[in-house]
Every structure is written in structure tokens, then in C-alpha cells.
């Protein structure tokens, strides 16, 4: 329903774009500029949870696709963690073969509709696009999204041929980006794949973390459905480490286990007052809103605090998702409190741009030092300190140094702490022989995802610490190859 509604908007939005583009074309004649993606007006969109960009229509997509010069040795493919056949799928779009383009994508990417939306293309394929040297790169992400959406909307979803059954059973723990990718790869190779997911819904961070306005849940559901149609079995409400251990899985006859459980535990700053009511981890705030649909309370039963003055601590994508959620929940003032400057912010430029358009107030070179509550235990104020940048630290970014005596008070009634996550120890603690590093992440040998336990592989955030969807998918892809070799070698 949501997709259909978006498409209606898409048409009106696109007409305006087309007219604009026609005039531009007359002026410039030959050179086609990078096509903008029509999106919801910021004044409108801060009052709804609908997706912000509408996506390309066919004309815009073909126009953009024609910009690709079809390099013989495409550096964009090398820039993609899952080796999407970029020039090939773009050529198909340019020729108007949209469904075929989607199938081409799916040869190497199980979740193109997701990646088209949330991948940091500017740091990957688009960064190395040859056009980008003199002009702007081809909008690979937007084209990927277009083709994948076209396929989903058409309902003409083709299930690829699978290899003949190998008789091998693989358990995948966690139905997030890494787990979904590896499941898609291994099922196609003829293995029997079962995903165990602790939550009641599959998708991991795509479902609980990334908001509807950035990644509609219908898109994720469709990608998960596709995997189930391929034959992947998904067991929900199954917390491995509690309901059963990794050893139990082997005892049940699984030949290999992949751990893609993410870096699920929230990090707090351990400053005074951090447990006051109204102070959330980003994980909780986003899970309430996205997974539990608290923004639709009371139609949905899970409540969420609809703060008027909301401070989000952090400068990453999760912080941007949180602060934009706060606006949509009715905040009058939504702040990003970040201890460095915009240059050091880990969030994607596009997300920062969207947040600014929507009226988020950026308080840079600021850090909270204390929260002050009322007599009922509710947060009412936040004491902040100003920072200045010193020498670069281990991450290469200039480290923030507090300026003595610069403390001041901001009135807040909701705070979201979005300063990162760490490893959840439940599985490691219940799996003997599984080595973890000092920070609790699983130790793997090289890129194969092989752990210190035979037959156990790991990938994604539980190995690297919080990273991106596409890197987790890349890890899933690598581990799939290694697991395939491992189980086949055992005969």
C-alpha cells in the first residue's frame, strides 16, 4: 500500500523534474547531467514516516543510465563489496530492460532494493566512477533502487535455479544483512539453510534500526519473502545462546554454523543521570519506533516518549535516523550533540543534508557531561561542555578536548544516546572454544569468516564492530564461499 502511494507522488514529483530537465537539456544540448531523485518536501515530510526520496521513474532512470560510459575495466565493480555487475545492469536500464536489470543485480546481490537505498555509494562504487573525475559520477545507487523497485512493483519476481541438493545443512544465526546474504548464496548452491532470528521479525538492523522514511519495511519484507521463496527456512523467536547453543545446532545435524548476530548491545557514556526516564539508547528509540511501530501508538501497543526538546548524542547515521525520528514524533527542537565538527561526522553526507533540510539543529563541538532530572525521575536538562579539536587520534580524526569552564545547560525532555554499539556476549559465552578479542568481537581468520571453532563462521558487525549494511553483506558473501568449500570437502 505504501509503495503504491509513493508511486502516485512519484509521478507528480517527476513531472516537475522532467520539465526542469527539458529546459536544462536545451541549454546544454549533449551532456546529460546527473539526474536528481525527486523527494518529499522537507516541510511535509517531517510530519510523516513515508519514504523521503520517491525514486526515479523510467525516463529519469534511462536518462541517468545513458550517462554510464561502459568502461571495459570498470573500477566501480571493484569498489563494491558484493561485486555487483554495475555496467551490465546499467546498460540494461539504458535499453529499457528493467526487469532484466533487476535479475542482473540479483546475480550477486540478494538485497538490491535495500542497497540502492542505504549503501554509502559515495564511498564505494560512485567514488571511483570515472565520470566523477571531471563531472559527477553515475548515480549507481539510484539506478539500483529503480531496477529493484521495478521488479518488486511488477510482481514478476523470478526465482533463480538452484544447484541440486547437496544434503548439507547450514545454520545461520541472525537474520540481518550478513545472514540474509549468506543464506541467499548458500541456498543457491544447493544447501539446506535455516536462519535463527531472536526477534519476531527478520531483517535485523534493516527492520529494527533503519527508519521507515529511509527504508520502507515493505521493501525489507519483500526481500525476506524472496529468500523464503528460494527455500530458506527462517525460525523467528529463536535466541541462540538461550533457546539452544551452537553445540546444540551441531547436535541437531547442522554441518556448519554462521554467526551474523551484529553488534547489538548499546553503549552509554556512564555520566550522572543517564538512567533518568526519557533517556534512550538509539537501539531502544529506533526499535520502539521501527520494529514495534510506536509512532503509530495507540493503534500499535508499544509506547514511545514524544519529546518536545530532543537531544541526540552522536554524529553517525544512527544519530541522524534518531534525530529525524524525533522530529517526526513531534519535537519542536531536535538537536544533534556532537563532540567534533561536521568534517569528522561519520554520517553519510546525504543524511546530514536531509537532517538539516528538516530543521535539525546541529550543536557541534559539544558533549553532555550530566543529565538533570525532576522529582519524578524524568530528564529535564542536560549539562554540556564545549570542545575544541586537538591532535589526530588513533582513528585519524582530530580528537576533541573539553574547554574548561565552558559548561552550560540545555532544556531537554528526551535524550537519545547514539554513540555506537558493542558486542552482545550471549553467544560467545555459551560457545566453548570460540575466541573473542578484548572488545568481545569474534576473532576470524582473514576474509573467510572462519573462527577458532571448526565449522563455525562469523561475519558482519560481530566481527568488525559497527559498520555498514553492505560490509556485513560482503562478509556474508565471503563466508558463504568458505562454508561451501568446508562442507563439500567433508564429503
Amino acid at each position, binding site marked *: 500500500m505504501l509503495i503504491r502511494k509513493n508511486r502516485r507522488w512519484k509521478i507528480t514529483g517527476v513531472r516537475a523534474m522532467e520539465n526542469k530537465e527539458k529546459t536544462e537539456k536545451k541549454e546544454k544540448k549533449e551532456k546529460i547531467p546527473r539526474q536528481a531523485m525527486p523527494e518529499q518536501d522537507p516541510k511535509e515530510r517531517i510530519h510523516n514516516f513515508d519514504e523521503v526520496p520517491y525514486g526515479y521513474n523510467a525516463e529519469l532512470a534511462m536518462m541517468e543510465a545513458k550517462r554510464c560510459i561502459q568502461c571495459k575495466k570498470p573500477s566501480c565493480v571493484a569498489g563494491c563489496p558484493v561485486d555487483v555487475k554495475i555496467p551490465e545492469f546499467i546498460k540494461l536500464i539504458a535499453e529499457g530492460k528493467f526487469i532484466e536489470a533487476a535479475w542482473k543485480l540479483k546475480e550477486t546481490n540478494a538485497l538490491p532494493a535495500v542497497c540502492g537505498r542505504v549503501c554509502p555509494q559515495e564511498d564505494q562504487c560512485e567514488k571511483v566512477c570515472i565520470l566523477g573525475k571531471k563531472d559527477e559520477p553515475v548515480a549507481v545507487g539510484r539506478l539500483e533502487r529503480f531496477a529493484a523497485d521495478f521488479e518488486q512493483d511488477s510482481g514478476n519476481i523470478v526465482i533463480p535455479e538452484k544447484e541440486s541438493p547437496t544434503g548439507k545443512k547450514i545454520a545461520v544465526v541472525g537474520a540481518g544483512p550478513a545472514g540474509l546474504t549468506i543464506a541467499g548464496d548458500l541456498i543457491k548452491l544447493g544447501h539446506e539453510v535455516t536462519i535463527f532470528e531472536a526477534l519476531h521479525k527478520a531483517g535485523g538492523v534493516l527492520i529494527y534500526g533503519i527508519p521507515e522514511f529511509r527504508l520502507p519495511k515493505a521493501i525489507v519484507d519483500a526481500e525476506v519473502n524472496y529468500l523464503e521463496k528460494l527455500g530458506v527456512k527462517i525460525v523467528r523467536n529463536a535466541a541462540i545462546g538461550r533457546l539452544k547453543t551452537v553445540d546444540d545446532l551441531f547436535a541437531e545435524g547442522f554441518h556448519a554454523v554462521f554467526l551474523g548476530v551484529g553488534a547489538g548491545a548499546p553503549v552509554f557514556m556512564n555520566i550522572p543521570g543517564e*538512567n533518568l526516564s526519557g533517556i534512550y539508547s538509539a537501539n531502544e528509540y529506533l*526499535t520502539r519506533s521501527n520494529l514495534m511501530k510506536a509512532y503509530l501508538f495507540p493503534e500499535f501497543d508499544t*509506547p514511545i516518549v514524544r519529546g518536545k526538546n530532543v537531544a541526540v548524542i552522536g554524529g553517525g547515521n544512527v544519530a541522524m535516523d534518531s534525530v529525524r525520528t524525533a522530529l517526526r514524533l*513531534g519535537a519542536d527542537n531536535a538537536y544533534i550533540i556532537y563532540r567534533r565538527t561536521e568534517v569528522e561526522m561519520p554520517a553519510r553526507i546525504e543524511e546530514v543534508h536531509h537532517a538539516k533540510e528538516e530543521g535539525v539543529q546541529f550543536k557541534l563541538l559539544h558533549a553532555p557531561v550530566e543529565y538533570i532530572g525532576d522529582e519524578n525521575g524524568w530528564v529535564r536538562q542536560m549539562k554540556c561542555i564545549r570542545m575544541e579539536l586537538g591532535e589526530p587520534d588513533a582513528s585519524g580524526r582530530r580528537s576533541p578536548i573539553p574547554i574548561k569552564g565552558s559548561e552550560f545547560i540545555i532544556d531537554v525532555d528526551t535524550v537519545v544516546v547514539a554513540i555506537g554499539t558493542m558486542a552482545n556476549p550471549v553467544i560467545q559465552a555459551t560457545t566453548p572454544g570460540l575466541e573473542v578479542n578484548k572488545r568481545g568481537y569474534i576473532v576470524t581468520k582473514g576474509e573467510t569468516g572462519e573462527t577458532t571453532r571448526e565449522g563455525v563462521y562469523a561475519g558482519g558487525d560481530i566481527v568488525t564492530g559497527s559498520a555498514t549494511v553492505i560490509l556485513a553483506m560482503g562478509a556474508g558473501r565471503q563466508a558463504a564461499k568458505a562454508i561451501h568449500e568446508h562442507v563439500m570437502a567433508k564429503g
Partner: protein
Amino acid sequence: MRSSCGRAFYKNEERCIIFRNHSQTIGDGALFKIVEKSFLQDIVVRMVIEAPEVARKRKPGQFIVLMIDEQGERIPLTIVDSDSEKGTLTIIFQIVGKTTAKLADMKVGDHILHVLGPLGHATEISNFGTAVVVGGGVGIGVAYPIAAALKKAGNKVISIIGARTKDILILEDEMKNVSDRLLVATDDGSYGFHGFVSAVLQNLIDSGEKIDIVFAIGPVPMMRVIANLTKPYGLKTIVSLNPIMVDATGMCGACRVAVGGKTKFGCVDGPEFDGHEVDFGLLMSRLRTYADQEKQAMENYRCESHGK
């Protein structure tokens, strides 16, 4: 924009019905059938649910999270008993809000959409010597499996159970069966000792009974009073906490509690903690976080049910 209360929605009955149908058709998990249901008293319900894998794995002190339907919230409930052969779990809950009211309205044969468990650490059971198990109100349901496990481990078990009044006292016979001594208190004196369970414990201590460990499960104020009472005697006291939870797997931190000045997660570090270290004031204020929304949801649900 939708108002924060969203009350207008429920005036529109047609949409409301659409939503209800929707909840019956969509569901992607295994379903958990209710096989027994009885009211232990007006607002306390005992329910037996099919959940074979959880039933096989579960240990005393652990809990489940359940979600009734697609629109539902996730709530934690302690497992009171299990039958691994039948593959069932027993839960006892008090109607305190919309979800528990809705659960209580479900019938034998109905299905709960999602059940996740067993969660949290099991109670650390060993032969302590003499163990006192204090249960208050619906907390007696949580105290029961602990008392049973303590008895099985060879402890002398003295149980103290209490309720506001005789009619709402639950599991008296069950507790009697797993205890060497059972002491009962009612606030109004309608049955047993006239007063709080804490006074019964104080009398027991004063009588010179050698006590090695105390387990206290019940309303937060009761647990606080018991912990304060035993502290001067250096009497180890374990409490089982019931903070608000969402995922209950250590992911969200909704359930954070302060124990010994450190932040702990009720779901993965608990649910049982050293009662002398717990900040009960913080627990109580955090439990009130959604009081307004809970009241609103309950009112809406009552109106909706009334119309049926």
C-alpha cells in the same frame, strides 16, 4: 499530523475493524496455543501455553517475552512452571494494562503470535541450608519455582507469602507443598498474620531462626522493605526485578537498573540481583515512564471491548 493521543482513530470503527482483521491474517512466526486458562482471582490469571522448545530448555527464574499479535507490545513474564513432555509453559500474570487485559481475554485454543525464551539467567540454586522465600501478590507465581528448586536441592525452605486480602492470595497449596514451613500474611488480617510479609520475616529473624539466604519477589516496595530489613543482619537477599523491556536480549537497554552503582540490564544480567545493591527508587521511577500512555491504551481497550 497525528496527535500524540491518536484517540480519533478509535472513533473510526470501520478502520478499527480492518486493523483487527489484518492482525489475524498476518503472522510470520510459529503460533503458541493457549491450552489452559483460569482466573486465580479477579485480576490474576494462570495460563498454560504450548512452547515445546522453551519448555524443554527453561530453568527456574527464567522468563519469556510474548507478543499477542502484530500490533502488540513485547512484555516479559516469568515462567512459573513447565512440562517438557507436554511441551507447555505455565505463566501467571496480573492484569495491569492493555496487553495483560487482552491476554486475559484470550480463550483456550487461541494462539499467541510470538513467544521468545527462555531469557535471563536461571536462579542460582544450591544447598544453602535454610532458605526463606518471600512472595508478595502475583510475585508468589515467580517465588514458587524458586522455592520448589531450593527444596529439591535439599534446603530447608521457609516460605512467607502475602496479599492484600485473603481472596486474592494465590498458590497457597502449591507453596505449602514445596516448603518446610509456610507463613501467610494479609494486609487486612483476613487470613494468617495481620500485616506485611516483612513483619513476618522480622519475627522469624527475632525468633532466632538461622537463615542462610532470602529470596524476595513481589511489588518493588515490598522487595525494597525486605532488602532494607535483611541488610543490617548481613543476610544475603536475592530479588527478582521486573523492569520495562523491549527486545529482552540485551539490545535496547530499556531495562537498565542500577546495582551497586553500576548500570546493569535486567534482561541479560538479571532478572535476579543482590537486593542490598539495587537502586529501587530508580527502578520505580523508570517503571512509571509510560504511565500516561499505559492508562490511555487501557481506556481505549476497555471502550473497544465494551462495544463488542
